[in-house]
């Protein structure tokens, strides 16, 4: 390993035959010129196509709703686009005022920009009555109650994780055992099928509620757990929603992204790095959702994990 410090010299020697040439520079200039030309063509065509599409939409709406349901002003209050059918002659060139009004594009009806709506921040975690969120802690792992779904089917229940031994409003002060501030003492806490370590379920006021694994009181992963142990396998994912960015509802793509996250995430700390207003919601094939709080390049639920690669790939996948 003594040579690693001399890598610069070694690599320059061993890759010395690889140089950026003037020929490459010429190719770059050519490629850049082509790219600029393409961009210029797109700039010209995009607004024209958008206006055309808007006109078609207006005509379509009129055809669907009928004349009597669309009040028309005989004299439009805003600028009218004069249109003329190609090769239509004089007859086509003269449009009645009402027809012209139909073809008119109301102000604000055309917008140029991203076609897909970006999802707003959603918080799936339930809030508690006191200062601590509703949770259950079993075998050193803490699970926070989710508000969505409001209840789950019994068929989703897996093995028993244990029974709540202590009900307390101050779970952080508890000294061990299965503790909850929302599940009654003596109630059984179950794993969710196929999601042991990531989700739990228990009866709360007569309803079977689902809980997601989170950090609590300076604790997060237990032993050699990795991110997958506290979330789910990539193969279980069917969709992803990243607030302010977009939704991936193609299961294969969502699974690829999940794999990138699982492969590349590195553990940062037990704490949640951001109380931010961005979340990553993972939809699974069992119909349940997992939520991760999103920081600059991190995701947090059970500990904070850094994974810039995931966010880069998510953006690429949205393009």
């Amino acid at each position, binding site marked *: *390993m003594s*040579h*690693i*410090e001399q*890598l*610069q010299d*070694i*690599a*320059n*020697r*061993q*890759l*010395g*035959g*690889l*140089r*950026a040439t003037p020929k*490459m*520079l010429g*190719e*770059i*200039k050519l*490629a*850049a010129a082509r*790219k*600029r030309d393409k*961009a210029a063509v797109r700039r010209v065509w995009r607004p024209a196509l958008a206006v055309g599409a808007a006109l078609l939409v207006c005509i379509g709406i009129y055809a669907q709703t009928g004349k009597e349901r669309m009040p028309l002003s005989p004299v439009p209050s805003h600028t009218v686009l004069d249109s003329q059918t190609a090769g239509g002659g004089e007859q086509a060139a003269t449009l009645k005022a009402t027809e012209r009004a139909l073809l008119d594009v109301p102000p604000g009806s055309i917008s140029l920009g991203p076609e897909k709506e970006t999802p707003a921040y959603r918080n799936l975690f339930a809030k508690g009555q006191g200062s601590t969120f509703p949770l259950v802690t079993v075998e050193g792992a803490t699970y926070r109650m989710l508000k969505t779904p409001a209840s789950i089917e019994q068929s989703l229940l897996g093995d028993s994780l244990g029974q709540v031994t202590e009900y307390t409003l101050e779970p952080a002060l508890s000294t061990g055992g299965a503790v909850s501030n929302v599940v009654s003492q003596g109630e059984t806490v179950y794993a969710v099928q196929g999601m042991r370590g990531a989700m739990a379920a228990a009866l709360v006021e007569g309803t079977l509620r689902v809980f997601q694994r989170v950090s609590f009181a300076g604790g997060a992963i237990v032993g050699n757990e990795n991110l997958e142990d506290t979330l789910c396998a990539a193969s279980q994912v069917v969709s992803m929603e990243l607030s302010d960015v977009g939704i991936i509802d193609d299961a294969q793509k969502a699974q690829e992204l999940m794999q*990138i996250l699982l492969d*590349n995430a*590195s553990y*940062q700390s037990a704490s949640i790095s951001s109380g931010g207003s961005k979340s990553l919601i993972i939809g699974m094939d069992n119909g349940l959702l997992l939520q991760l709080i999103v920081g*600059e*390049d991190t995701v947090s639920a059970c500990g904070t994990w*850094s994974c*810039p*690669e995931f966010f*880069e*790939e998510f953006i*690429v996948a949205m393009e």
Partner: protein
Amino acid sequence: MTYFEELYEKYATDVLRVSYFYLGDRQKAEDVCQDVFVRLLTNAPELAQGREKAWLLKVALNRCRDLWRGAWVKRVVLGSPTFELIPAPDDTERRDEEEAMMTAIHQLPPDFREVILLHYYQGYGISEIAEMMGMPEGTISSRLSRGRKKLETILQGGSQQ
């Protein structure tokens, strides 16, 4: 010479070599280098003085990462165990140890390969790499340290792939 040509003259070889070191495929490395400079020319980003090379390498590594992850490319073109070195024609003393280390670095998982290349090959400090990659310094330090350990394992006959 224009500003662009000046940047090309100064940094294109580094961009090309880092890309090649990462991908192990000369044609792909040239494509990456071309992409990076085309982007510089067409997007005209505002680069702070002294930060030009960092920007170019960051874009290059992002592109390398994309290529590496492209499933087909990864399986069929890249990741080949034959990472051929391209020494300068007048370099006759090719030492086995050097070759072994170059190959071992190329075999590292991408996360570790990146930080090793930026730190030991391109001479960037931990804080600079953290800024370039948009990651905490702790992560970079940890990757460097783990990368070195993995490198030792490979050089001692283990494998990381």
